[in-house]
């Protein structure tokens, strides 16, 4: 891997961790467990847009490992990894969709993955009702984050290709 690419990927991972910490400082918008902005997911989108599937997976895994260390509780790792994998699969599946829509779909995938882990851990399927709230949040925040990723990509196009 070229040093340039490695550095860019590392910057994405660092940005993801920073956004995660920033986001955990924001008080929850509503009392729905799991409802979050998901700002950190923008780096997965960017890695996927700029480089490809393999690189996006690397950025995602590194980010989840590091942020789980920050979060402290082991159970958060399970939620993050389940959400991350589901989100990643959706991103790969909907390659033809415009970026903002892909982002929203991936956010829904993320929530479905996390609620599934919650259902297994709590042994109660009633947590799936949470999805009604989470899907609304995922569509709104996912689309906005996707639009942000589009804007960043447009401005960074020349830089990413190399000079």
């Amino acid at each position: 891997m070229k040093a340039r690419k490695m550095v860019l990927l590392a910057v994405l991972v660092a940005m993801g961790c920073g956004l995660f910490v920033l986001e955990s400082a924001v008080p929850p918008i509503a009392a729905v467990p799991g409802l979050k902005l998901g700002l950190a997911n923008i780096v997965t989108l960017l890695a996927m847009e700029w480089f490809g599937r393999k690189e996006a997976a690397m950025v995602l895994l590194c980010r989840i490992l590091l942020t789980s260390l920050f979060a402290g509780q082991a159970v958060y790792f399970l939620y993050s990894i389940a959400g991350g994998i589901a989100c990643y699969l959706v991103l790969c599946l909907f390659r033809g969709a415009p970026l903002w829509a892909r982002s929203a779909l991936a956010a829904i995938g993320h929530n479905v993955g996390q609620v599934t882990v919650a259902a297994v851990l709590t042994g109660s399927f009633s947590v799936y009702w949470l999805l009604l709230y989470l899907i609304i949040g995922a569509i709104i925040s996912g689309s906005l984050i996707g639009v942000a990723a589009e804007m960043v990509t447009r401005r960074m196009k020349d830089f990413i290709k190399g000079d």
Partner: protein
Amino acid sequence: MKNKNLLYIAVFSAAIILCVIGILALQTRPAQGVADIYLEGELVRSVEWASLEQPMEIPIGDGNILCADGEGVWMKHADCPDQLCIKQGKIKGGALSIVCLPNRVTVTLRAPKAEMDGVAR
């Protein structure tokens, strides 16, 4: 490209409307008088809160304290950092449970069993 954007906007709008309808439908469900408390997937206690006259505290495991009175149940204490289950407030009906993800506690409401109704009548 433009058509695709429109297609996804339509799909997402429809999904949001469906979710809102679902949430509204859940909120109109009548109160359900029994709270089932699950800890790590196992039913540890059922509380008939609808008939309570005094508020009652129910410790769940080591980390949570649930409160119930005649008007609903709510989480009073949790030792987790996010405190989301407390912010969920009082529930009395609907399908939404109180969930404390870090401690793996869920409190779901249901109607009393049929034979209980018979006794009450």
